[in-house]
């Protein structure tokens, strides 16, 4: 019997599910090896019986907490996918403001009828086997993680930075063009797709293990960024990190 995969979506734009759906050629071959039983963007069926759950989105309501705990009980392996699920991502900006203010900003007077909580990443609520970072995830990483799960190969996070991959790609450094970038301390694995196409790295894959945040702040200062701009740069995707606490 083929292993059953399920895709679940919480607070997010569902762009990571779309990335999986975009694997048009490979999906047919994947289906030789697995059965997909839940995938809102692709199929109607829903099933409570699955082996691996790919969970997208951050957790922002009581209902989501219960649902993700239920998924954990049913799945043999849970993989958090995308920045929202792995590090809070853009959603985490919500936590910079009082919850009542947020409700009012988004829903106006109707805000009081909405149950909403500060943003949590999936691993704040349940243990996960792997975090597949990125906004959105890399299609290549989805394939390699799926293959490794099927083969029983241990899953490993890349231990190199976006900068490493950017140099491998032979790119002109954005700092040489008078721009700034977080690639030096951001976890790699995206093949430096943003710098390769001219955008700077915003840190969507989260900060690398033992990232030298203070060193990065000094570099950004030396490149003319104000304290507010630096804070904003870090808060874009990495808002769950307490920026003021980790820097001088």
């Amino acid at each position, binding site marked *: 019997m083929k292993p059953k995969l399920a895709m679940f979506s919480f607070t997010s734009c569902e762009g990571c599910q779309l990335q999986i759906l975009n694997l048009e050629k490979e999906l047919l071959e994947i289906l030789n090896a697995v059965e997909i039983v839940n995938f809102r963007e692709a199929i109607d069926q829903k099933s409570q019986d699955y082996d691996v759950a790919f969970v997208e989105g951050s957790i922002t309501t009581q209902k989501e907490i219960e649902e993700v705990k239920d998924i954990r009980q049913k799945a043999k392996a849970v993989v958090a996918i995308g920045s929202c699920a792995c590090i809070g991502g853009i959603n985490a900006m919500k936590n910079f403001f009082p919850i009542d203010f947020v409700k009012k900003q988004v829903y106006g007077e109707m805000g009081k009828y909405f149950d909403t909580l500060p943003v949590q990443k999936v691993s704040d609520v349940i243990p996960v086997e792997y975090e597949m970072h990125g906004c959105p995830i890399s299609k290549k990483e989805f394939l390699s993680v799926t*293959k490794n799960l099927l083969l029983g190969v241990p899953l490993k996070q890349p231990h190199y*930075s976006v*900068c*490493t991959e950017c*140099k491998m790609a*032979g790119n*002109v*450094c954005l700092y040489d063009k008078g721009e700034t970038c977080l690639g*030096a301390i951001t976890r790699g694995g995206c093949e430096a797709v943003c710098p390769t196409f001219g955008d700077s790295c915003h840190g969507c894959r989260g900060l690398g293990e033992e990232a030298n945040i203070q*060193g990065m702040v000094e570099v950004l200062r030396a490149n003319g960024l104000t304290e507010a701009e630096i804070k904003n740069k870090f808060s874009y995707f990495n808002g769950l990190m307490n920026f003021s606490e980790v820097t001088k």
Partner: protein
Amino acid sequence: MELYFLPKSKINLLMEEILGEFTVFGPKQKDIQFVFEEISHPEELRLDYNTSILPPVKTFFPNNEKLIAFNLNNIDKTEIVTNENRKILFGVHPCDINAIKMMDEIFAKPPQDEHYLARRKETIIIGLNCKKPCGEKTLCYDKGTYKADSGFDLMFWETHDGYVVQVVSNLGKYFTAKFSYFFNFFTEFTENFYDFVDNFQSEQEQNFTKKLTHNIFELPEALRETYDSELWHEIGAKCLSCGSCNIVCPTCYCFDVHDVVDLDLEGGHRCRNWDSCQNIGFACVGSGENFREKSSQRNRHRVFKKEVYLPQNQGFSGCVGCGRCNNVCIAGISLIEIYNRAFELQKNQEEQK
């Protein structure tokens, strides 16, 4: 030795001929800088380049290279993958020629690296001498690597309107013989070569400057004494462990190996990627222990590997002074500064004795 004179106006014509017969790698413009990549049109070749983002030697040691092909269900189907095709590296600067010489030695030492050697085999290297340094942060004059005595098949010496072409090897002669109609028709060198070289070198002497306060031969000893010094903690605090210095280095040869299985979960390849000793996981072993978990240790290791361990074990320095690592470091870490700090520390210690 054969000598020719090639007017600048004829370079494109020569390139057209070569491109019909060979795969050519050379300097070409990318945005505001230059890369050393495959040339598809004659006008792409930019012999006026300063330096390339990645060094030419990477042609023989590409990133994500397939080493073996395997089949999980049939071990007999395992095959070594090598890639052999005659190619030309056109316009390699002396620092990079010296780097290729070093890498040739490293990869040819047993156990030989078949993959590197296959790509390297029969590659024609056309050198391009530098009249002036390519930037502020190079150490090539201190290291003597601003010129190359060997390691090339042809050498181009720039003049105001052309290039003196010096052919030194059999491969070089094969090259000029292959395009003999071109070289015989368009190119004739009538001056005295040794006078020309003398003049070229005195121009170099005027343009290049030393960056170190001491002789480079004193460096291994001076560095050894910094082992426990505060210097490495200072560098470690600045370093972002991004790994860029290693990736752009023409003499960094460390790699990581991983398997990529096909979607049919049967076939696949074992591949290698360039690795960096500045990445936190580089010295992490199977038990989970990390031999160099601090950035200060990793930085010290990079410098010691190049300037202490390699000279001690192989008899040559692992740095050709090309300056790429210094240019690429956004945190401003520079080997020039580190080396001079080491000399200064040594001097202070001697004065205290």
